[in-house]
């Protein structure tokens, strides 16, 4: 299973696209005609087809098998959604066509917004953010804008973030100048309202909290926490990464949330695509709604209008613009197709099945593997630590790599940071019981092998993948980030 790079197999004079040379004409390039070399080899169409098909076969996807990646929610990607996103009425329209020619697109955005607001109970939604972290940025900007409008923007420079948070939370806060103050977890894996209270003060702008949290638990004191945050004059930002557990089970507005981003590519199954694209709409409370960015969708007597100008009526407080154009339309179509397909009943059922499956996995493995915080029901993820590996000489990473040889993608490892050697398993609602049982059997077999001292099975793993373990240190020490033409080989006679 070896496949050369396109720079090795392609050739400068080959192209896989037939384009006629235009008739001679006077160019308008002025002084700017390209003189720099352009070393881009081409592939004929058959060569390109084979190259990418072969590359794809070195990958693992949801369609290959269970993808138990905690906190990342890799669920079934319906092909109906791909088909819908490709309708010319969605895929072949330009963001700057006259709005009179895109009424259906605006209608779709409005319907998506309605679904998101119904599911969260919130007041407004900003559709433009392009991924979860971009949504966090949008939400935190809204909070900063709200403080500024209120006049305490200068003094509130701290954001509280639990230790178990995703890395994007502190990174986002820091990006817009906030100082991050960590909140420790209590023994049961959730946030202690008292810890929040003691961390709050007039310098605190917001709390960022993931709920269900990254230990897979619902923050059962979330209402008290939200009250404390609000009492201290701060806002409550919720990280929506784990929204999949609670669709139709609780409305986050009822928990006191002021802003939450929603990863359409997690909860609503727009495909991860090897790292994106995602989409991160942000729902906002009454308090933050006026600060939503432009463009904003507004219902008028003449129908839906997309207000693109920050200076327009009704957008005086807008936080600004997150990016060019109006957001990830392709993802909106897919997400809405998913929601229409599931309906109110199916979405609740999906969350229930996701939670049920995670608890089932935990119940079936906790005699062999150590599950912290197991006194509480898990939500849609089952968390294990590496206590059970004590004395085996093996690490969480070894278990993950050995799981590859069993035909699975590894679970999320070493996250959350609050437990040692974390293994976070999220089966999602997309697995049959038979599939879960096979996965459980594979992990039980590995656990028994680990305890029986079969170190070789782990330390050399994976044995049956397109590659064995890769040397990451070498990659980082002297980074090779692009192909370069090999130096000519010296003549043998020299």
């Amino acid at each position, binding site marked *: 299973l070896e496949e050369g790079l396109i720079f090795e197999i392609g050739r400068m004079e080959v192209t896989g696209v037939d384009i006629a040379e235009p008739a001679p004409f006077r160019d308008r390039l002025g002084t*700017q005609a390209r003189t720099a070399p352009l070393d881009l080899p081409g592939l004929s169409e058959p060569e390109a087809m084979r190259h990418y098909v072969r590359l*794809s076969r*070195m990958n693992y996807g949801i369609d290959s098998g269970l993808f138990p990646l905690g906190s990342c929610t890799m669920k079934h990607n319906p092909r109906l959604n791909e088909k819908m996103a490709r309708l010319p009425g969605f895929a072949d329209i330009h963001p700057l066509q006259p709005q*009179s020619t895109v009424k259906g697109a605006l209608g779709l955005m409005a319907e998506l917004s309605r679904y998101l607001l119904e599911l969260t109970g919130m007041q407004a939604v900003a559709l433009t953010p392009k991924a979860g972290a971009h949504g966090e940025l949008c939400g935190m900007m809204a909070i900063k804008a709200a403080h500024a409008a209120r006049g305490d923007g200068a003094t509130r420079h701290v954001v509280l973030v639990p230790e178990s948070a995703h890395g994007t939370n502190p990174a986002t806060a820091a990006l817009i100048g906030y100082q991050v103050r960590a909140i420790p977890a209590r023994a049961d894996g959730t946030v202690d309202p008292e810890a929040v209270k003691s961390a709050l003060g007039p310098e605190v702008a917001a709390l960022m909290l993931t709920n269900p949290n990254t230990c897979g638990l619902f923050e059962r004191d979330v209402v008290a926490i939200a009250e404390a945050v609000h009492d201290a004059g701060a806002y409550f930002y919720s990280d929506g990464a784990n929204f999949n557990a609670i669709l139709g089970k609780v409305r986050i507005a009822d928990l006191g949330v002021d802003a939450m981003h929603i990863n359409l590519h997690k909860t609503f199954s727009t495909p991860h695509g090897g790292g994106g694209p995602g989409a991160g709409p942000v729902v906002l409370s009454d308090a933050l709604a006026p600060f939503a960015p432009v463009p904003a969708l507004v219902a008028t007597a003449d129908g839906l209008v997309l207000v693109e100008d920050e200076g327009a009526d009704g957008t005086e407080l807008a936080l600004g613009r*997150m990016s060019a154009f109006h957001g990830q339309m392709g993802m909106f179509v897919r997400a809405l197709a998913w929601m229409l397909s599931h*309906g*109110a*009943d199916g979405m609740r059922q999906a969350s229930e099945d996701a939670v049920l499956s995670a608890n089932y996995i935990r119940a079936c493995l906790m005699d062999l593997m150590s599950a912290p915080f197991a006194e509480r029901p898990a939500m849609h993820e089952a968390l294990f630590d590496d206590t059970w590996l004590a004395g085996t000489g093996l690490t969480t990473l070894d278990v993950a790599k050995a799981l590859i040889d069993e035909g699975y993608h590894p679970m999320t490892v070493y996250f959350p940071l609050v437990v040692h050697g974390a293994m976070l398993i999220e089966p999602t609602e*997309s697995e049959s019981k038979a599939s879960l049982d096979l996965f459980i059997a594979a992990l039980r077999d590995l656990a028994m092998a680990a305890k029986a001292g079969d170190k070789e099975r782990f330390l050399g793993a994976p044995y049956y993948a397109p590659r064995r373990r890769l040397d990451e240190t070498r990659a980082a020490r002297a980074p090779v980030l692009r192909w370069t033409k090999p130096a000519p080989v010296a003549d043998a006679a020299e």
Partner: protein
Amino acid sequence: MRYLPLTPEDRAEMLARIGVACVDELFADIPADKRETALPHLALHKSELEVERALARLAGQNVPAGSVPFFVGAGAYRHHVPATVDHLIQRSEFLTSYTPYQPEIAQGTLQYLFEFQTQVAELTTMEVANASMYDGSTAAGEAVLMAHRVTKRRKAVLAGNLHPHYRATIETLSRYAADAVVALPPAPFGEEDLITPIDDTVSCVVVQSPDVFGNLVDLKPIAEAAHKAGALLVAVFTEAVALGLIEPPGAQGADIVVGEGQSIGNALNFGGPYVGLFATRQKFVRQMPGRLAGETVDAEGRRGFVLTLSTREQHIRREKATSNICTNSGLCALAFTIHMSLLGKTGLTRLARGNHAAACDLADRLAAVKGVSVINDSFFNEFTLRVPGSAADVVEKLAARGILGGVPYSRLAPRSGLDDLILVAATETTTEDDRAAYAAALKEVL
């Protein structure tokens, strides 16, 4: 529900194994008074056929670009994408895979990202490129932040002819990060003075070429001035195809090059998802935002690829990361790199020449309409038309005649006072008939 494999019997068995009586016991940590029992305003589940009908009805209320003479650009361009591209990106193993954190079973993704990085670097004539950003505008925002990190200064100068959405994106980010921005006024009619604002407090000057009006900008003198002041040149483009024909920013002294990659391999999609390109010099690589695929070897010595230099990234570095970006534009980058591999130098050059030819022809036809002028001295596949009266009105009247004739600059910059300018793009997808129809309709509506 077709997407949910568990049956009632399965659920009962699983609940029994867990040791709870009903699924609601698993939701016990949700405060009882906050639990929801239904979603009364949302419909129940629908069949595929019903969902198709509902969405097709909405799609049918839009006018697809392919159904009319179409000349809209201003940051997103309609090109013909080979069927191979869309087929390949839908391969299960690409479409449904995750960020390649487990390189042993993600070599497909990692190798194409490495190839993508190389192509972007080559196209821009820079040394290194990352594995994609959300889009061109957010990449521009990240470029400014990176320039601040590199120079340890916090003030950016933005050219007046930068796409107004890009300018607004940078301004928003800078405002919340408490960084200074000097944004020059638009200068459609003449050369802009970008040298004077540069002093030793400036971290970077951000210049777009072709600029938002379509003009090709000589970046060399600006790069020289910036470098003399210890600042960086951030070069922006919104039409990647242009680089097949025009001098790349890397050959003119740019330190960071960012651009929109949509126009290669990706559909218009009403604005997203797109793919941001980001390239820079090797020496700045540790200040770059976003993911990087790098070459290495595996335990058996075979060449392989991994994500590398991740100590720049949020999942490792948290609040000290170079950016908060996580999910980016993997699949759009794949579409870009497949299309680019099919094109190669030969195809890209021909494509670019075909675009330029179409735009030159259209410019000639429209400039021949009485009362209308093309303001550009130079351009690639987009130029600016000056019309008598309101550009917005003209565009609406053209739309009523079934011609999508471009973008009024006033839509992008409502208070600029430049209300008589239309940005007009022509790609290889326009036909001679389309261009003739535009000229004829323009004559009628004026």
